[in-house]
């Protein structure tokens, strides 16, 4: 088993385990940290996929910015660990939860099935222009030439999000009540 494959299993395993733990326990702080870990693993996978730039971006944007935001919120709200199901203050129907869980498994099965159909499309031969894939120059060119409009639009999206966030968290207008 080649070194790359080993690395794949290492990172992939890390990502899966971390993600499982994220949804697997009740303390949001740990969930956030574990998610960061899983992102790190994904970044590693991106490097394996000849996308070092995206790997770094993943770290900077996700781990460096978005997750900090989550961490902040968790800290500011001082969110308590989830109460175990048996003594929840309000009686909540569990149907949807379990249905969702089952459906999730069903989804996994289906995805696996779909995958099994196309298995072997990639005969594993190395792509010709890995260097060109990895080059930030190329990414920049495509991003700012072919996707220029979409890029500009995202800027608007960001503005809207900012304004919305500020508006929502203003003291005087809590939850629009």
């Amino acid at each position: 088993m080649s070194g790359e494959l080993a690395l794949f299993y290492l990172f992939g395993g890390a990502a899966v385990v971390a993600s499982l733990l994220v949804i697997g326990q009740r303390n949001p702080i740990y969930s956030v940290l574990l998610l960061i870990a899983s992102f790190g693993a994904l970044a590693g996978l991106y490097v394996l996929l000849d996308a070092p730039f995206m790997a770094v971006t993943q770290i900077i944007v996700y781990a460096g910015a978005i997750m900090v935001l989550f961490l902040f919120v968790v800290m500011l709200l001082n969110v308590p660990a989830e109460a175990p199901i048996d003594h929840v203050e309000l009686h909540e129907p569990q149907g949807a939860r379990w249905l969702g869980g089952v459906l999730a498994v069903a989804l996994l099965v289906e995805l696996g099935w779909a995958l099994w159909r196309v298995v072997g499309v990639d005969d594993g031969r190395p792509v010709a222009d890995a260097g060109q894939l990895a080059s930030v120059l190329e990414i920049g060119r495509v991003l700012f030439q072919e996707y220029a409009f979409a890029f500009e639009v995202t800027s608007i999206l960001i503005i809207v999000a900012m304004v919305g966030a500020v508006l929502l968290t203003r003291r005087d207008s809590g939850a629009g009540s």
Partner: protein
Amino acid sequence: MIPAVVAQILLLLFVFFMLLNSASVMVYAERKIAALIQQRYGPYLVGPHGLMQPLADIIKLLFKEELRPLAADRFLFMLAPVISATAAFAAFSVVPFGADTTLFGLLEEPLPLVVADVNVAILVVFAITSMGVYGIVLAGWSSNSKYSLLGALRSSAQMISYELSYGLALGGVLVVAGSLSLREIVDAQAGTWLGVIPRWGVVTQPIGFLIFMTAGIAETNRAPFDFPEAEQELVAGYHTEYSSMSFAMFFLAEYVNMVTVSAVATDLFLGGWHGPFLPESFGWIWFLVKMSALLFFYIWVRWTLPRYRYDQLMMFGWKFLLPLAVVNLLVTAAGVLSFVG
């Protein structure tokens, strides 16, 4: 003859220890310079001119009792300083500090003087530095004391705010050099104009340099931006509850971060290891000189300027530094487009 792999490992260890050392050296330098600025003697008892003082400090730290608040979250409390230190060390790993060398023929193929040569090095530095925030935040939160929490929130807010200016200042240099690899950026600065003016980034990007240094000071939570550990208000902020080794790690992290920032600044703006009078193989000497100058500047600033107020800091960061950085980037880009191509 040493095989390349071994050489690489040796280099790694070497860099690691040098960073460790740099911390203690910095401690000494800081105290001495502070003393000079304040017309004191500074440490002079331990060893000649108090040269052994850092050692004494370290020993003291090591033998202190490891305290931990009861209400603290044990795991995170332990984790936080590790994160800080790791981030600090890791960041340096992609910073080149000299031209390729064969160590006077000891190696068959030349060895690049950098732990890991990545083609997006500068972004890696950026990414890892941003990871440093977690150390502080977790420390503040996990030690479950309001001073720590406040310090942590402040410092992370500060770091996040200044990361923007930091990154944009980098942007200027990147645009000029047209590469993300620190080595290429450094090599782009080799030589001179008209034989006298060095082709350094600081010449092409003076404003960028200033922004970078300012943001760097804020990133490393140094005076005059040292809110996290503002003794007077926060009794040392996020590491209030820390002691002994774990405290030492934060301490270490802070100084290593300074070194890293200075090193990066040297590579980006001061032409790295390029300089007159010395052969390429001795370029690292130039590198050390320039870096030390910057470090001195750090200390100098710390002991000269008073601390800002928190709101002033944020004002400055968002309403002055950031716009300035943006304008600088735009102007640079325009210039490159019009002159270079």
